[in-house]
């Protein structure tokens, strides 16, 4: 840090970092300078002229825009004198010339910077008697965003956001002078994954979001800060409701995670909470094989008896649990304790056969923090397309590469959202990952440039599974190689909001709460509290499903998991659930999986329960409750506690907060992490460290070629899909791209198909019919199919598929 300089603002000396903009220095020292275009997370432009202040210069006082004036030593600033006041009044009078006075019907009224600052700094009256400019209002610029050009004051916050931050500048200033307007290209809507941010930062009511328009007045909203659970970045959000209905989510500027931004999935993907399809009562399968409503007592007895029978006949190891990665740590802990202490099984997995080794995920040595991206010399991204699956990380990597000068190497089987900022992009055929890795390690030939970029430390590597045809060992082998790079840190990527928290709570066969491994001292301490721990080694998700299919496992407890939809090999999951003796589901919806259960318990979920989550860097954050759960729904932990009670085991769980205390007590790394701290002084979260120190093992990953006549399948997720939360959110469900088969032009020509023509894609475990998308970004011989789209069967985690026209 450079030597601070001293600036006098309104006759008070304050110190500031040289180079910092005056408006920021003033704000940090309690002097608010009105502004519209300046945003602390974007580059200044000085467009709105609202932040004019007077500074002393050798040639007398000078009026400058404080958002574009860096502080310098000895600078004297006046933000309130009559000249400044007159300027502010003048600017506001100009801004209001064309701004309609439709505040009574404007969603922004009551929280509108233009309204507020006109009240505080405005002239009170206007001399403008001519006609204001008129536009058709409002026009939809995407499925989610409406634009009212009459209200727009042309501050360029939205256009700068889409160019600087999200990298998809689909809106721009059009025309000139008095005709200037923000708009899209005529037939290219503002279809950005981050469009909702422009609504949040619009200083007037020009941009409004269709899911929220005319739903509430700001002064009627009740709100609470919480954490988003769609992806594992731990984005801080503000939940807002009116009359017990969740209506809006705003991003909170939290330095370590989302820095104010949210993806549209996070911002608008809450409508499912109030879906009429939510379960409101327990369901029990009756003698005719139909699920019917039952009382809690009846359902709990039914489930306890069914599970008890399996345990007494085949032992606890015949029972398995799946899920827990979508809820809170407290619920995950309860699930872990229920399965291990009440049932006696280690067969539990919070990942759906689509992730990485849990030891790598939560315990890798030299694990990276998100903030490491800011100081990274170079970044390697070899995993899922961050824009699709980890939108917050996508923005952070983009910023590192675009604004902070980090080199970026992206390795992926097709185009990704980061390609335009990548120093080197490597495209490869799925199955060839091992080959690509050894080339990268050699650093010769086409990889010389990539190695050159990665020679600049500190290196941050974001590693995960690019698609489901790829072996999970690839990410681990890459992690092992990355350790040889200068100052390297690894961030393993995994899906689902609280997968890292669930792993920390022991929802994995080999792990116990607090990242403890079986057979260690920590496990011993845990046994003192939980009673004897099951001795048998457990099975992971795939093992559980195969066990159910073959009969090695007889009963399954699902907690917020939909394996039929979520496991890459959905057909295996369907067979497994169909073959299971007993399936108990704790869920918010009747999903394709819970529909096959014998008992379904209605669970409370997001915005209905209080607790903690742990994000991708091990940061524990608080989630809060704002709305009541529907009908008779209850929190996961309470359901598990009662179920255990009916099975004759007292889990000793009293409340979520008590569970949090128990976690703090038993999981060494969570010591000191409590709700009081997270609610007040540590709202940005507390990073739990004390990793397993797991050193990734390098193993040679063999390259796999599809069999003759087959194409290599790239099977990967998109942001919007047919998961139950998306399907039940009416604003987002139409945005799923739908089933498609992306082919290289040469393959399309070989098959004699063009854009939109149907093809059949057949794998060993499923087949589907999809429209062709000509996609030059995939390698010849590769077909890319988006995973889990509406009305599409699963292809399984296979490499080779047959594509026929």
């Amino acid at each position, binding site marked *: 840090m450079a030597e601070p300089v001293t600036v006098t603002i309104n006759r008070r000396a304050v110190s500031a970092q040289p180079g910092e903009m005056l408006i920021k220095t003033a704000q940090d020292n309690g002097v608010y300078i009105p502004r519209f275009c300046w945003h602390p997370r974007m580059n200044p432009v000085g467009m709105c002229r609202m932040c004019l202040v007077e500074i002393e210069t050798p040639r007398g006082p000078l009026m400058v825009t404080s958002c574009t004036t860096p502080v310098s030593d000895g600078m004297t600033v006046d933000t309130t004198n009559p000249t400044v006041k007159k300027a502010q009044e003048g600017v506001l009078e100009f801004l209001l010339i064309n701004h309609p006075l439709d505040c009574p019907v404007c969603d922004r009224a009551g929280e509108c910077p233009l309204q507020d600052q006109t009240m505080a700094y405005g002239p009170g009256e206007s001399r403008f008697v001519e006609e204001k400019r008129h536009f058709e209002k409002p026009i939809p610029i995407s499925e989610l965003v409406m634009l009212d050009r009459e209200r727009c004051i042309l501050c360029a916050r939205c256009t700068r956001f889409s*160019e600087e931050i999200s990298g*998809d*500048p*689909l*809106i*721009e*200033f*059009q*025309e*000139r002078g008095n005709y200037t307007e923000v*708009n*899209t*290209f*005529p*037939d*290219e809507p503002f279809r950005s994954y981050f469009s909702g941010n422009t609504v949040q930062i619009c200083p007037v009511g020009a941009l409004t979001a269709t899911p929220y328009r005319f739903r509430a007045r700001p002064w009627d909203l009740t709100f609470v800060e919480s954490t988003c659970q769609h992806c594992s970045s731990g984005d801080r959000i503000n939940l807002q409701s009116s009359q017990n209905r969740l209506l809006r989510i705003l991003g909170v500027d939290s330095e370590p995670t989302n820095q104010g931004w949210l993806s549209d999935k996070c911002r608008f993907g809450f409508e499912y909470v109030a879906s009429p399809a939510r379960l409101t009562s327990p369901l029990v399968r009756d003698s005719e094989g139909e699920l019917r409503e039952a009382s809690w007592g009846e359902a709990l007895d039914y489930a306890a008896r069914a599970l008890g029978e399996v345990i007494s006949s085949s032992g606890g190891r015949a029972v398995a649990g799946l899920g827990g990665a979508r809820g809170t740590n407290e619920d995950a802990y309860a699930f872990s304790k229920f399965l291990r202490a009440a049932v006696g099984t280690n067969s539990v997995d919070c990942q759906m056969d689509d992730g990485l080794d849990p030891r790598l995920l939560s315990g890798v040595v030299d694990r990276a923090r998100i903030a490491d991206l800011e100081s990274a010399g170079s970044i390697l991204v070899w995993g899922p397309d961050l824009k699709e699956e980890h939108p917050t990380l996508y923005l952070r990597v983009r910023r590192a590469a675009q604004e902070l000068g980090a080199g970026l190497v992206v390795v992926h089987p097709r185009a990704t959202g980061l390609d*335009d900022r990548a120093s080197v992009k490597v495209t490869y055929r799925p199955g060839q990952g091992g080959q690509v890795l050894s080339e990268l390690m050699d650093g010769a030939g086409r990889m010389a440039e990539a190695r050159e970029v990665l020679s600049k430390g500190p290196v941050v590597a974001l590693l995960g599974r690019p698609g489901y045809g790829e072996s999970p060992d690839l990410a681990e082998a890459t992690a092992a190689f990355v350790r040889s790079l200068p100052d390297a840190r690894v961030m393993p990527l995994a899906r689902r909001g609280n997968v890292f928290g669930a792993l920390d709570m022991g929802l994995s066969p080999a792990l116990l709460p607090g990242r403890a491994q079986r057979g260690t001292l920590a496990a011993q301490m845990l046994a003192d509290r939980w009673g004897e721990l099951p001795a048998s080694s457990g099975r992971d998700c795939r093992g559980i499903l195969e066990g159910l299919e073959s009969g090695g496992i007889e009963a399954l407890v699902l907690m917020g998991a939909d394996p039929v939809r979520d496991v890459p090999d959905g057909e295996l999951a369907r067979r497994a659930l169909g073959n299971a003796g007993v399936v108990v589901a704790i869920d918010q919806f009747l999903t394709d999986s819970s529909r096959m259960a014998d008992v379904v318990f209605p669970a409370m979920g997001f915005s209905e329960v209080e607790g903690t989550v742990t994000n991708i860097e091990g940061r524990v954050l608080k989630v809060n409750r704002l709305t009541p759960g529907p009908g008779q729904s209850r929190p996961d932990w309470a359901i598990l506690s009662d179920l255990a009670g009916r099975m004759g085991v007292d889990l000793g769980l009293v409340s979520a907060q008590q569970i949090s205390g128990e976690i703090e007590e038993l999981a060494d790394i969570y010591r000191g992490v409590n709700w009081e701290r997270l609610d007040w002084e540590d709202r940005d979260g507390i990073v739990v460290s004390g990793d397993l120190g797991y050193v990734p093992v390098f193993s040679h990953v063999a390259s796999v070629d599809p069999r003759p006549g087959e194409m290599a399948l790239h099977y990967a997720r998109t942001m919007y899909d047919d998961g139950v939360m998306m399907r039940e959110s009416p604003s987002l469900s139409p945005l799923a791209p739908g089933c498609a088969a992306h082919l290289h032009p040469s393959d399309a020509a070989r098959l004699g198909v063009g854009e939109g023509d149907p093809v059949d894609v057949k794998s060993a475990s499923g087949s589907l019919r999809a429209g062709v998308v000509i996609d030059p970004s995939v390698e010849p011989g590769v077909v890319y199919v988006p995973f889990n789209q509406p009305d599409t069967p699963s292809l399984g985690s296979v490499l080779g598929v047959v594509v026929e026209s």
Partner: protein
Amino acid sequence: MVEIRSPSVRRGWSESVRARASEIVKQYPDPRSAVMPLLYLAMAEEGYLTDNGMREVAGAVGLTPAQVRAVASFYTMYKRENPGRYLISCCTSISCMLLGSDEVLGAIEDESDVAAGETDPEGLISVEHVECIGACGGAPAVTVNYELIEGMTTEKARELVRWLRAARPEAIVGAECQELFGGRRSFDWGPFDRDSALGPYPAFGPLGTVSGPAGEQDG
């Protein structure tokens, strides 16, 4: 000399146009800097700037179509509507205005029966008023298909419109029009040079947007 072709309904540029575009892009360290010359290329290709043309430019320079349209709509000389065969542009900036450009424009509109910003039904004459065209010394000034005529009067303006209607010249040559309809000139504009003052996109002649790839017109 301006060649205005009828708009094509083609979905995209031909390979040769694309090749010319990439030739132009190569002249800049940052591809997006080539957006303006490429917009002229798109205009020359289809007679005016179509959505299709702007999309092609966007693809060639790595911008989004919205960004390209932002540039195209900022500058009035990028035509996003098909102009008539003869485009009469009357300067109404300060020097011309002080010397009677309002009357000149009025006379053109009256004689041609085309309001500023519009084109006659047969697509022969378009009239527009423009900001300063850099001929203040010869105010009031108009251009026809970007060929300059200085020292305009209302009578000469009416004559000009009648002549365009009657003679329907193949090409507009500035020197000839000045001779026929112009008055006092600001200074001697020098000899005929098709790639400088006489093209509709003078500055980009050397880049090949006027008469084929760069270098061809040399000598």
